[in-house]
């Protein structure tokens, strides 16, 4: 079921457990209405992957995920022939070959006869669909998440272009496969490298930053309903102050949530400097950051 308008998209994403900003709701709605992929950028842990999941939930579609990495190729992303199965079958049907060619007089005829059977071996039976082909051939519309596309090689990026503009892929032995249902595509990038202009041109762009204070409080309360209002506010304020420090890795929303969960597990109701200092390991992933935050404790919690 498609979104009707921006407000509808906003409402349904919220219902799916994701609190979108108005920008996010607008872009998601537009991408859906014009069937264009979204290129989502932003710091790690701001909910880029989560957005894809929420979109899938709110549209009631299956989520197919392709994780990119250096060295990812078509065989892993699109399809692969099941060679072992093909060979196994060819061994099993070996005896039948005589039946096919027994009526032929010359070698040429025999080859001709066998060539007619070729299709049996290059058919859907022996193809192993990978995420991209799955997304295209699925009878029901799906949400396709191409995660961390910046980690993939430029060759793979070029290959994605055909798929993203026409929603079709070519398999040499079988011909071109068109999308049965156009999938909703989200690409995420951590800005490890710049994406090519051609790829960017085919997508609408969305930058997700850390949420503002109110939104972050709302997110914490949504994900952890049993947190006290006071603690939640103090927690978010502290996190926001920690983000202003010059850290190697700033705490993201997922760290806020982890922190809130651990505070609840420890049954802590007030955020004191001692508590922050003891539970810092949840937010800071580097020793250096940890020390820096410890040195600035009086600024973070009052």
């Amino acid at each position, binding site marked *: 079921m498609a979104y009707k308008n921006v407000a509808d998209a906003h409402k349904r994403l919220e219902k799916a457990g994701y609190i979108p900003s108005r920008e996010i709701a607008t872009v998601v709605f*537009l991408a859906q209405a014009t069937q264009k992929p979204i290129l989502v*950028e932003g710091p790690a842990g701001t909910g880029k992957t989560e957005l894809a999941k929420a979109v899938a939930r709110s549209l009631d579609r299956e989520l197919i995920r392709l994780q990119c990495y250096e060295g990812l190729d078509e*065989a892993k992303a699109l399809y692969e*022939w099941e060679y072992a199965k093909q060979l196994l079958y060819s061994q099993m049907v070996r005896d039948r070959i005589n039946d096919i060619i027994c009526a032929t007089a010359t070698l040429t005829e025999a080859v001709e006869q066998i060539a007619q059977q070729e299709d049996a071996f290059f058919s859907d039976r022996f193809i192993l669909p990978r995420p991209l082909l799955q997304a295209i051939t699925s009878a029901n519309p799906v949400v396709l998440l191409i995660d961390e596309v910046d980690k993939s090689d430029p060759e793979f990026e070029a290959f994605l272009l055909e798929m993203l503009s026409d929603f079709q892929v070519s398999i040499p032995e079988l011909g071109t496969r068109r999308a049965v249902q156009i999938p909703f595509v989200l690409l995420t990038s951590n800005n490890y490298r710049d*994406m090519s*202009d051609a790829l960017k041109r085919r997508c609408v*762009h969305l930058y997700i930053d850390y949420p503002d204070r109110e939104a972050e409080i709302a997110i914490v309360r949504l994900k952890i309903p049993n947190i006290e209002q006071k603690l939640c506010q103090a927690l978010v304020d502290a996190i926001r102050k920690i983000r202003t420090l010059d850290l190697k890795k700033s705490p993201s929303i997922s760290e806020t949530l982890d922190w809130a969960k651990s505070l609840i597990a420890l049954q802590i109701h007030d955020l004191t400097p001692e508590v922050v200092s003891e539970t810092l390991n949840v937010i800071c992933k580097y020793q*250096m950051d940890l020390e820096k935050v410890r040195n600035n404790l009086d600024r973070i919690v009052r």
Partner: protein
Amino acid sequence: MVKLVQQFVSCCRAAGLRISTSETLDSLRQLQLIDPTDETQFRTLLSANFAKSRRDQLHFHRLYHLFFHEMCMNLDDVDQAEAWSDMFKKTALILKEEHDHGPVYDAVVDFLAGSPMGLVAEIRRIREESDDQPAQLRFNLGPLASRLNVLMQITAAAEAVLALIRDNYFKVSPATLEEMAAHFNNRLDIARGILLQDPANINTNKKVKASDRHRKDFGEKPFSSFTREEIEEMRDAVDRLVRKLKNIVSRRWAARKRGNLDIKRTLRASAKYNGVPVDIHFHRKALRKSRVVTLCDLSGSVWAAGRFMLNLLYSLQECFDKVSSFVFVDQLTDVTQTFEEHEISEAIRLVMADENIHYHAPTDYGETLRNFKKNHMELLTRKTTLIIVGDARSNYMNPEDTILGQMRDRCRRVIWLNPEPENLWGTGDSEMMTYATHCHEVRACRNVNQLISFIEELV
């Protein structure tokens, strides 16, 4: 609405954003789906289609603000707005006819009349032009002079406009006249503002700090204060590093052996088993060949670290297939061949003794970058990692950071290693902050630990 978006697109293009026709079409199509009177939706739509990276976004928002807030007329009455815009156009025509000051003046007048394209394009041209003066006379006055010219044209246009208003050329009521004057003054202020304020680029996740594992006692000691023994020890450390590098490279080979089925080899192997393909062979995939281009500053200010940097350069060249190494002070010198032909200490000695490198000249980053752009730009491809080693102290000469931006657009990653401590970046003649906006990664690299963690992450 179509016209408005088109105007905005040409304004963005004039400012250097790359917007294709298909993107314009997309945005127009999408405009029918949303409520254009809701500003968040409208702005998000344009931003999602026109600014497709974080770096472009800030630029976009500045232009958006200029175009839709500062340049628009604050009039509720549509008829009156039209009358005004007619009047502005007439004013522009008169101003252009009366004085013939050249294209810059015309651009300023157009700006006053409500179309900012010309002026925005002119300012962009100034920012990106590199001064091609002979090497003996290097100043960064070129861009400054062009700016001054625009400022003078703005002043000229201001005088002409105010003269027109004073004479009440259009024969309008005093109240309208006053409003008009206020309006023109406002626009003149905006024009001066965009001329004088350079847009600050933003760049996400650029600063990388070394992790804090301590590997060596002298790991935290700056290169500059090494004793002779420590230098030897340091050599050892670098040697070990290089060996490690090679190991990692070969491990990558091993981990990636699976590719497509190799029919030829499978069939050949099956002959052993009476044609039954028992052994299945796969193609080995070629490892992605990383190319590295290094630029190393060898001037007096980084002299102490220079030797180690050369060490590092040499090791890199040994590890990777395609490395081009350059050193520079006031000019770029290609040392790739020296490194290839000689053993490490000999190579470093040769570089240090090279007469073509003016070790006593002041560093000139701008000239180096210009030089690179002119002669070696083709080295940078989508697979290249560019590593620049230097303190970014440009002796107050034109830093030419736009060239670095162009270089970034061509290559996979730009990494800047700075042998200065971080708190000195951006002080005095250091252009580190200017350059940092164009780098994917900026690191302080003043001791062995930082060097080690850099090399580890590079592979």
